C-alpha cells in the first residue's frame, strides 16, 4: 500500500500541513496586561510573524515562545485561557479589536487583512482578571446552580428511556443547549455588572446565558418539575426584570442562540408565575 520509501514518506509527513492561501507577514498585537488582582494595568505591543491560516491563538503561542516587545524589551509570556481551539469550549473568549469573541476562531487574515494592521487584545471587562487576558468566570457557573440547571433524574441506575420528544422541541432545546458559558452575552450587556464580591452575585443581574438555560430545562418533560423553583429564583433582584432589552446579547452570541426569545419566554413565565403566586400563595 505505501511505497517502500521511508525517507520520502517521512519528509512528506513533516510538510504535510497545507496552511491555507494567505501569506506570511508581520502583524502587531497591542495587549492589555496585568500581573494579577490589584496590580496595575499596562499595555505592551508585539510584532508576530504570522503564517497562512494563523489565528490569535497561534500568535499568542509565538509570543509565549519569544516574549519580546516591539521595543526589543524582554518580558513575560502573555497569559490567556484556551481549550478546544474550535469554538466549542468557550475558554478563549476575550475582547478583540473592541469586540468580544473567541480568539481561536479569530483568523488573522480576516481581522487584520492589511499590512500594518494592529490587533488589540483585552480581557473581558465583566469578570475579575486573574492575569493578563485570563479572567475568572466562576460566577457563570454559580448562576447555573441558582437556577437548578439540571434535570432532576431518579439517580443513574437503569430505569428505561427518557420521555419521547418531537423533532421541533429537540431542535429548540438543542440550540439552547449549545451554550458553552463563554460569557460573550454578559460582556456585551449594559445591565450585567462586574462584581468582584461573590456575596453580590445573587442580587446583581444574572444575565442572558442563565436565563436561557432556565428556559432549556423548563422545556424538558422531566426538567419541568423544577420550573417553579427556577422562576422563583428569577423573580427577585437580579432576575429577568432587570433586563434592559438592549438586545446586545443575541448579536454577540457565537452559537446564535436566540437569547432574546429566551428572555422574553422567561419574562412571560415569571409574570404568570408571580400572578398565580399572588392568588394562590404557592
Amino acid at each position, binding site marked *: *500500500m*505505501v*511505497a517502500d520509501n*521511508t525517507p520520502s*514518506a*517521512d519528509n*512528506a509527513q*513533516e510538510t*504535510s*500541513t*497545507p*496552511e491555507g492561501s494567505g501569506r506570511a507577514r508581520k502583524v502587531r498585537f497591542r495587549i492589555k496586561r496585568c*500581573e*494579577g488582582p490589584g496590580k496595575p494595568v499596562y499595555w505592551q505591543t508585539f510584532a508576530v510573524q504570522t503564517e497562512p491560516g494563523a*489565528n490569535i491563538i*497561534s500568535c499568542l503561542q509565538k509570543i*509565549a*515562545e519569544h*516574549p519580546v516587545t516591539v521595543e526589543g524589551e*524582554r518580558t*513575560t*509570556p502573555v*497569559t490567556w*485561557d*484556551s*481549550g*478546544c*481551539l*474550535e*469554538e*466549542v*469550549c*468557550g475558554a478563549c473568549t476575550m475582547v478583540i479589536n473592541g469586540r468580544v469573541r473567541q480568539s481561536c*476562531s479569530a483568523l488573522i487574515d480576516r481581522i487584520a487583512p492589511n499590512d500594518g494592521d494592529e490587533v488589540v487584545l483585552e480581557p473581558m471587562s465583566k469578570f475579575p482578571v486573574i*492575569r493578563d487576558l485570563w479572567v475568572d468566570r*466562576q460566577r457563570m457557573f454559580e448562576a*447555573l446552580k441558582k437556577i*437548578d*440547571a*439540571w*434535570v432532576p*433524574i431518579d439517580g*443513574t441506575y*437503569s*430505569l428505561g*428511556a*427518557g420521555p*419521547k*420528544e*418531537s*423533532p421541533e422541541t*429537540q431542535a429548540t*432545546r*438543542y440550540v439552547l*443547549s449549545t451554550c*458553552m*458559558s463563554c460569557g460573550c452575552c454578559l460582556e456585551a450587556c449594559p445591565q450585567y455588572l462586574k462584581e468582584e464580591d461573590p456575596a453580590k452575585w445573587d442580587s446583581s443581574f444574572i444575565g442572558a446565558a442563565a436565563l436561557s438555560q432556565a428556559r432549556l*430545562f423548563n422545556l424538558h418533560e*422531566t*426538567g419541568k418539575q423544577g420550573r417553579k423553583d427556577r422562576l422563583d429564583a428569577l423573580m427577585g433582584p437580579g432576575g429577568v426584570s432587570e433586563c434592559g432589552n438592549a438586545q446586545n446579547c443575541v448579536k454577540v452570541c457565537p452559537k446564535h442562540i436566540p437569547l432574546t426569545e429566551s428572555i422574553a419566554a422567561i419574562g412571560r413565565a415569571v409574570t404568570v408565575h408571580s400572578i398565580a403566586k399572588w392568588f394562590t400563595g404557592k
Partner: protein
Amino acid sequence: MSAENRVIVVGGGLAGLAAAVRVAEAGLPVDLFSLVPVKRSHSVCAQGGINACNEVARQQGYSEYQHFDETIYGGDYLADQHPVLEMANWAPKVIDLLDRMGVPFNRTSEGNRDLRLFGGSLFKRTHFAGATTGQQLLYALDEQTRRYEAEGLVKKYEFWEFLWPVTEGEGEGRRCVGIVAQDMRTMQIRPFRADAVVMATGGCGLVFGKSTNSIICNGGAAARCYQAGAWYANPEMIQVHPTAIPGADKCRLMSESARGEGGRVWVPRKKGDRRKADQIPEDERWYFLEEKYPGYGNLVPRDIATREIFDICVNQHMGVDGENQVYLDLTHKDPDYLTRKLGGIMEIYEKFVGDDPRKVPMKIFPAVHYSMGGLWTTFTPGSYTPETPVGEHKPGMVPPVDAQPGHGLAIGAPNNSMTNIDGLYAFGEVNFAYHGATRLGANALLSCIFDGLFCGVSVVNFVKGDRVREAPAESLPSQVFDRFVEQEEAKVKKLLDSVQMRGEIAPEHNGYTIANELGVEMNAACTVVKTEGRLKKCIEKVRELRERYSKVVMSDSAAWSNQSLSFVRATGDMLVIAELIAKASLEREESRGSHYRLDFPERDDDRFLKTLVGEYDPASDEHKISFREIDTSLVKPRPRTYGRVDAKPQDKKEAVAQS
C-alpha cells in the same frame, strides 16, 4: 465506610464526571480536580455520536453481541475482551440514562431517537445530538455533577493541576492514598487525601504537536502516574483520524459522521487536474475507498481510511491540487438535511476555512486524534465462559450469549479498571482496555461513560473494603504525603531557578521550542507509517530533547498564575511518554490496527497478539518493555480485511455488505 472516606477524581470530562456522579450517588464525597472548569473539558470536541444496539438495528439482525464483536475486530484483537463485552451490553442502558438526563438527541418524526451509520459497522447504531454529541453528553453530566455540588457531595477544584499520586507501601502492596496538586492561580502546592483516586485525564495528543486534541491534552497526568510506577499499555497505538482540517495552531476534526451521513472521499482521476471540483465529471473522480472496499466503502475503520488517504497523497502524489489533501464531499446532499444532522461541523469548516461545505467539497487530511493506549488496568471476568472462543458473528445469527449485565465483568468487583497500584483507577481515554489497536468511531464516548458509571461502583466497593477500613487515608501520618509535596516543590524550584528575565532564551533550552520540535518529530516518525530506521532516529531525537530539557530555561518567575511553569513542567512529562511511544513502536515488529510498520507489514499473532506494557524505572530513567498475554477466550482472532477487493478470498468473506 467511615465519615471521613473520600474519593478523588482527576479530570472532568465524560469519564471523570460519570465517575463523580456515580460515587457521589453512593454517598461518598468526591473531590474533583480539573485543569479547566469541567464544562470546558476536551469531551466537548467529540462530534459524531455514541454507539449502542437499538430496537431498529436489532430487528435487522444486530445485537449487543454484534457490537462487541465489531469492536474487538475493529481493534484488531488487542482490546481486553471481557470489558468490551460488558460495555456493549450496557450501551443501550447508557443511552437511556443520558436521554433521561435531557441530552437533546436528534429525533425521528415520531419522537424516537434518530440513528446514523458510522465506521466499522453496516448497521445504524450511532445516536447523536447534531454534530456536537460530545458537548451535549458532557453538559448533561456537568449538570448532574453540579446538582451533587449544590448538595455538597462533590467539591470541585478547577484550575488545579494534578502533580503526582501519593502512594504508601511497596511492590504488590502499594496503595494510592491521595494526590499532590497545584492551584494554577495562587500556585499553592498541597496534598489531598483520598481512599481511592480515579485518573480520567484523557489522551496525549499534544505529544504530536498539532492534533485534533484540546490544548490541555498533553498526557502529563498519565505520564506522572507512569513515572510513579503505574504501568502504561500499548502506547504505540495512536489513532490518526482520516479527516481533519490542518491549521496553524491545531488540526480541526471533521467528524466521521460526515461519511456516516453519505460523505464521499475522492480525488481527481487525472494527476494534476486543476479544475474546480464541480467541473470534474463523475467518471473522472476516483472514489478510492469505495472502489477498494465495496462493502464498507467510505466507512472502513479510521486506520484503514487514513493509510489509504496517506498513500494517495504521499506515495501516489494524487492529492487535490498536488497538495496533501483529498476531497470529503457532501455537496450531493440536501443543505437543510446537512444543517440538521451536521450543523456543528459545517459551521467549524465555514469558520476556519471560509468555504461552505454544503456547496464546495471539503479538503481534508489525516491528523492525530486518540490514544488507544494508556494506563494499564485489570478487571474481574464475568460469568460468560464459552468452551472455545467463538468465531465470526454474522448479523442475524443468534448471539452465543444474551445481553444480561455481568457476563463480561463481575459487577462491582473492586479491581475493575484499577491500575497495578491499589486504589488508583484509570477511566476513559487514559484507560488502555477498550479499543485495542484501533478505536471504532462513536465508541469513545461510550467507553468513557461506561467506565465512570460501571467502574464507579468498583471504586465505592474498594473504599468499603478491608484494606481501606483498616487504614483510611485520613488516619495516615502526614509524612506519607509530605515527601511527595517536597518532591514537587523541588521540581518547581528548579524550574523557577532557571528563569532568565533578560535577553533571548537560546532555542536549545527554550521549553516551548523543545515542545514544538517534539511534536514535529513524533508526527513524522510515530504516526501513519513507521520503520525501524526512522523510529531509532526518533528515539535519538527525543533523547537529545530530554538532554536539552534537563537544562531548560524559563521566561517567567511569577509566583501568581504562572502558565509557563505549568507548560514547561508538562513538557518534561510529554518527553517521557514520547520516548515510551517510540520505543514501544520499535518493539512491536508487526502491523496491527493503527500501528503500521512498513518493515513488518503483516499482523503477527504468534509473537504479538499481546499487550505491550511499559514500566518506568526511576533509578536508571529507563523504560522496561514487556508483553502480556491477552485473554482471547471469548472471540477467536480472524483476518481483519473489511472485505478489501484484493484480499485473499478466504480472508475477506466475513465482510460483505449485509444490510
